[in-house]
């Protein structure tokens, strides 16, 4: 097999256009929410800062695309080591005397490093990228090593997944950062699903997860005290109370009630740009979709969802086209990540899912997370650009 040596970058224009639209929507929606931003943050122009982050992200995409994505394979373990180092730092740093000038605790979760003027950096975000790369590489190597792919081989692969994912996952859940934990689970699930593991194992794993969920509900209903002290804290449970009965739990349901009020009152066409009537404590992040939906109604919201769908569609397309499975797995991981975040974020604002602190990719304000998503997109574009059509394929 010979490879064409002259690089011919193929750029996926559709995907880039979709991103451009999302960036524009992001800018205008953050700008629309600006009035409601708490007084202490009023001096920050979030919309303008978001543009700066988008520009920085373009450089990151370009940087990602310079090197053949295949090369990333070789640094995945180093990246994994680095990610673990950062997570361990968060867990043990405070007790080892790292000052809280460096490690940041927000809303009870120790999950950030302060990087001075660059803002705050969340290792859990990096971990998403690291896991996409490392898991994809693991599958490729596994398939190379066990081309027959017996049942035993499948189980072995599952075991490898667990060995890789469990340590960072535990550290992230301990921060506690349930949202990132869920996103990583989505990434793992998507990659595992396309890895070719037999359906029966996938069903078994899925049923296992469902069974554990059911068990939790059972324990909660029958041994509430035990559940609260050993499994989920009251504040985490509040999310569920607020979701299941927003009008009964005055405080717990507040955010959902506000979100439903904003989105619902937007009706078909919305109230028009910047015509916000419903107040959100921090509108520029997790509830940005509610603001948008209030402004542009069902039509606007459907367009945003369609844009995301188009984004996913392009990525599926790239994954299907790619002649290197490593690239396909990466795409699957990114698809899992973005799909889950979009579904979770929009789902929570319309009452389909409980409230979790997961931002809406590309639209919510957020520097470091945007950067990570864009690097992911960079990877996908990289996969696309290195895809060759073979005459006899």
């Amino acid at each position, binding site marked *: 097999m010979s490879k064409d040596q002259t690089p011919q970058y193929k750029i996926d224009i559709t995907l880039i256009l979709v991103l451009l639209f999302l960036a524009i929507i992001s800018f205008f929606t953050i700008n629309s929410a600006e009035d409601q931003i708490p007084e202490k943050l009023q001096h920050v122009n979030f919309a303008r800062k978001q543009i700066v982050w988008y520009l920085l992200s373009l450089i990151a995409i370009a940087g990602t695309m310079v090197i053949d994505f295949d090369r990333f394979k070789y640094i995945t373990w180093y990246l994994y080591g680095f990610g673990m180092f950062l997570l361990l730092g968060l867990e043990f740093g*405070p007790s080892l005397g790292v000052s809280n000038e460096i490690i940041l605790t927000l809303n009870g979760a*120790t999950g950030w490093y302060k990087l001075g003027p660059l803002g705050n950096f969340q290792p859990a975000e990096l971990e998403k990228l690291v896991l996409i790369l490392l898991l994809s590489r693991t599958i490729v190597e596994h398939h190379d090593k066990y081309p027959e792919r017996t049942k035993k081989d499948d189980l072995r692969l599952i075991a490898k997944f667990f060995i890789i994912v469990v340590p960072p996952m535990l550290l992230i859940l301990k921060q506690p950062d349930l949202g990132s934990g869920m996103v990583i689970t989505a990434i793992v699930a998507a990659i595992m699903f396309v890895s070719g593991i037999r359906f029966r194992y996938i069903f078994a794993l899925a049923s296992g997860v469902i069974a554990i969920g059911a068990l939790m509900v059972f324990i909660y209903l029958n041994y509430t005290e035990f559940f609260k002290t050993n499994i989920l804290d009251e504040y985490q449970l509040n999310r569920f109370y607020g979701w299941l009965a927003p009008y009964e739990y005055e405080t717990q349901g507040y955010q959902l009630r506000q979100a439903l009020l904003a*989105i619902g*009152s*937007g*009706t078909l066409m919305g109230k028009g740009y910047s015509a916000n009537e419903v107040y959100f404590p921090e509108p520029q992040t997790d509830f940005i979709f509610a603001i948008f939906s209030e402004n542009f109604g*069902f039509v606007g919201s459907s367009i945003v969802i369609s844009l995301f*769908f188009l984004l996913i*569609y392009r990525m599926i397309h790239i994954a299907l086209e790619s002649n290197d499975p490593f690239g*396909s797995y990466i795409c699957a991981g990114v698809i899992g990540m973005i799909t889950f975040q979009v579904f979770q974020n929009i789902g929570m604002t319309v009452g389909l899912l409980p409230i979790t602190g997961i931002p809406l990719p590309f639209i919510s304000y957020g520097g470091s997370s945007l950067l990570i998503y864009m690097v992911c997109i960079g990877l996908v574009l990289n996969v696309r650009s290195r895809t060759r059509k073979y005459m006899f394929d």
Partner: protein
Amino acid sequence: MKREAARKKKKSHLPLRLNILFFGVFVMFSALVIQLGIVQLIYGETYQREIARTEDVTVAIPVPRGELLDTNYKKIVDNTPLNAITYTKFQNTPQSQSLEVARKLAKLIEKDASKVTERDKKDFWMLLHPKKAEAKLTKKEWDKFKVKKLTDKQLYKIQLSRITTTEINSLSKDELEILAIKRELDGGYALSQQIVKSEGVTQEEFARVSENLDQLPGVDITTDWKRNYYYGNMLRTLIGNITTTSEGIPKDKTDYYLSRDYSRNDRVGKSYIEATYEHILHGKKAKIKNVTDKAGNLISKETISEGEKGKDLVLTIDIDLQAEIEKIIEEELLAAKGRAGNHMLDRAFVVMMNPNTGDILTMAGKQLEKSKQGKYETTDFALGSMTTSYPMGSAVKGATVLTGFQTGAIRPGDYQHDRPLHIKGTKEKSSWQNMGSINDLDALKRSSNVYMFLTAIKIGKGNYIPNGPLRLNQNTFSIMRNSFSQFGLGVPTGIDLPNESIGFKGQSTLPGFALDLAIGQYDTYTPLQMVQYVSTIANGGYRMKPHILKEIRDPSLKESEPGQVIYSNFPTVINRVEMNQAYIERVQEGFRRVMQVPKGTAYSSFSSAPYKPAGKTGTAETFYDGPEKNYRGKSTFNLTLIGYAPNKNPEIAFSVVVPWVSDKDQINKKIGRRILDKYFELKNKQNGIIAQAISKNE
């Protein structure tokens, strides 16, 4: 080739799996769109309505309290308007707003920081120095917090305890001012106006704030009011007090007030007239609808109701008379204090009432207190006329005689022999002089104790045997007390003020005490009960309900004219004494002789009075029971005088009570003469003015 084959095989699964994945994505996104459709298209209008509904917020603005006027419509209490700077919090006003507003306001107004507590300062210091506050905690404590062994509150407490005084003192003067303002802003309840500063707001401050209102969310400028007492401390104990804005409505009656449209920081009457007539004095609040968006920003204001000033109370009190009488009491008290034997004397009371209507014209009480310089000063104790009680002595003898008539124990004109009585087991009981054979009129005129003793013995169906034991019927006390109560002695007078005392009843029923009861040395009565009792005799047997409220009027529109009458208090007869008119007339005659016939106990003081007074003196042997501990239990006398004038068709009844004074003193009669003189003097003056006015008009 093996690898190649493997790749082929592997490739075969990827498209399928990716397509399934894509289908999954499709399903999830479809779910989002469907749910969006449900929320926006099906329930959209409901949410729109809900938004419209939650936009209006009504804020109640307090109105000035009603005024108090005297019987001649002279102002006793009114309100001074004050420029006020207010702050209103809405439900979704962010916490951070108060600090911002306080900072801005501090530049515009001066605010006294003396109310700021140390705890306030500590909280504020932490707010200003979050990093330094964080550094107050050790790593161990932070770690404990992270593993949830310490709560936020506990951490905060530790931080508070570690703030040093130097750190507290590091707050600059300006910062303290900001804090003082912030305290006021935070103190209010959502949706009710909180006064940030009302007293001492200068015109400049008022102007500066009003110019900058647009930058001060929640801040407004209005007019607040302050109670203005025209006669200083006069009657203050009766008028009572109102709560301050920071006290708000009384905690124990929160529900009562809240259900009546009060806000928690409303000022309400907390004692006596202010409290009793709270519902009248308190006006209807102005209501202003604030239309806010969901962010809590004010879009527009709309007045729903203008509100109504509290209604004015016209009291029966004649404030000029009150003032003169207080002056008389004061002078007499100070003069008496200089005389021998009056070291325990510290108070005197006068109550004057219209015996035909129950209008209280004057309710005065004064208490002597030694100032730091050792000089005596008087303080207002008007309240004592209805909340304190004393043995009243012979003044009650009118009631004793009438009880005798009523029970058939004696008949008008009956003679009895006044001589010392010797009852086994008790001290000799006698009058102040032996009067020999006297009838009922003499007994009243000269104040015979023995005549009353013999009457009481007859009421009790007993027999006086010199040196023998005395046996009386068990029901003697109840017969006498029941009869006394028809005059208001020992029962509530029914005055329209709270906390009225009914006096104390002696508990023992030994026969000897029935004799003491007959001369007013056993049960205690209040000066107010005494005036009701003498009025009942004066008006021919009608027990009038004393009252201090004459009219309720709408707020006056012109400064000089009182407003429209809404309610007028009509005289209320509580009961008609169940006695023959002739009996009452007999006692009236006795009372007349006390003051108008030689040998009457008050003849020397009143014989020259042109207004034909009638009355009864009283001297009660008693024990000191006042605030001075050294005197407690020492024996002393209460001097009293009750009366009315003129003796035919009386227009004024009064009682004078001076406890703990020498029995040689004449203070009761001196006060009595002077107050009656003053009453008629003022009345004639008033009539003169009216006569002049009439003649002018003609």
